[in-house]
């Protein structure tokens, strides 16, 4: 598994369009605890091009940041030039670092939310450069088994989305092998129409008590819901509504979520 078991992650679902997605990614805080999701509507609208573009932008955003940090660490005396807005180019920094035998190895974690329901092998084959993909928990068991196997084969994390599955444990019991991540999900339409529908927090410990998997919670969007999910032992929290339309507030929102996330990590350690 690519994700680390002891860490907590915030997953940002990008569902709008590629321009908005780019703006959001460029405003995200730099962290290996941020997961970027190419959302289903975006994939269905733009195809796999959406995934590769998101990956490109994320690489640009995060590896630039990492290069800058490494550069400052290696050449602390040059920091004042960067801070002063000196136009030291990315390539110059890479060249200097290379001379010191250093390079940037940070790879952003991107999830392709393909919501596979059939033809697992084919669907995994068309996505590339991602660290994880999703399959529906309501799909035939044969499909989920094949999906997990294909993910393993392709060295990416398998995520099973339990949206509209009443008892995820019953699905997990039928599988040949457990996935890397189980997503407990409250759909967008469900949430909007049935305000009473709750995120199934109680299932987190049920699942983690029986299977060595990470649990991701999707369907909440307030800072309180993110905190509550982590408090209830979730490893990943997926947010989307606040990010669905990019606003000038996006960076602030991400930063606020991230600050809360750090608090959660400390409190659960």
């Amino acid at each position: 598994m690519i994700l680390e078991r002891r860490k907590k992650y915030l997953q940002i679902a990008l569902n709008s369009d590629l321009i908005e997605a780019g703006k959001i990614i460029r405003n995200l805080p730099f962290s290996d605890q941020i997961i970027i999701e190419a959302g289903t509507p975006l994939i269905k609208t733009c195809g796999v091009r959406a995934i590769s573009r998101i990956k490109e932008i994320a690489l640009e955003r995060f590896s630039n940041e990492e290069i800058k940090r490494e550069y400052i660490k290696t050449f602390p005396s040059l920091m004042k030039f960067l801070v002063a807005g000196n136009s030291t180019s990315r390539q110059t920094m890479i060249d200097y670092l290379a001379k010191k035998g250093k390079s940037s190895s940070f790879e952003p974690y991107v999830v392709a939310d393909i919501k596979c329901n059939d033809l697992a092998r084919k669907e995994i084959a068309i996505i590339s450069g991602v660290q994880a993909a999703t399959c529906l928990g309501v799909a035939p068991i044969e499909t989920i088994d094949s999906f997990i196997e294909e993910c393993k084969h392709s060295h990416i994390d398998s995520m099973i989305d339990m949206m509209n599955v009443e008892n995820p444990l019953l699905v997990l019991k039928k599988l040949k092998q457990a996935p890397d991540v189980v997503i407990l999900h409250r759909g967008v339409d469900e949430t909007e129409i049935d305000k009473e529908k709750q995120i199934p927090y109680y299932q987190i410990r049920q699942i983690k008590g029986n299977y060595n998997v990470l649990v991701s919670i999707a369907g909440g969007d307030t800072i309180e819901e993110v905190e509550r999910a982590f408090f209830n032992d979730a490893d990943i929290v997926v947010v989307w509504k606040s990010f669905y339309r990019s606003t000038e507030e996006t960076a602030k929102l991400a930063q606020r979520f991230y600050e809360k996330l750090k608090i959660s990590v400390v409190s659960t350690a």
Partner: protein
Amino acid sequence: MLNKKLSYLQIALNGTLSEAEGIIGLLPASDRILVEAGTSFIKAYGIQGISIIDRLWSYKLGKKGYIVADLKCMDRGFTEVIAAKESGAQAATCLGLAPIQTIDLFIEKCKELNIDSMIDMMNVEFPFEILEKLKQIPNIVVLHRGVEESEMSNKEIPYLQIHKILETYNVLISIAGGETFKEVRGAIFNDANIAVVWKAFSENPLQTAKLAKTFLREVR
């Protein structure tokens, strides 16, 4: 939009764009052939892919062809239907296992945009139970045996369900999961209105173009 008295053959395209182009070129031009942009195809090429298929098939027919966008919608019923309509599709699919709210929104939006709503009952043991819960019924119910299911288990095509549904609901029935002419004829013989094939086309387009011609000649 489809005529209940006719039977249709739906060709699902799940390969590459150039394969799709080749297959459309081989198909006999007929209103009784429906062309489907398969889920994997949509995930690979997006709505632009659907538009290209629409243009190719409509050109071949000499008029607007019937394109099914196999979205297998699971959430956000509204947005996906709008995207399908914009791409030129006449029908879109939603999973029977999606939340009921999603299916309701999906059907409502399809009606509003004047495209056929297809509910795919793959992995649904009792399609009836889903239909009962809906605010309004869809235009088409798809009874489905998945690709992995048919390859890895002996699961049968659910012919038995057809009459049960038709006795109660005024819908068209589509049967997916068969590949041979015998299976296609079996589905229509068992009162399905649409038979969906995909595998044979990707493995042997010439053979299946022949199947389509045989279908048009022998099945009414």
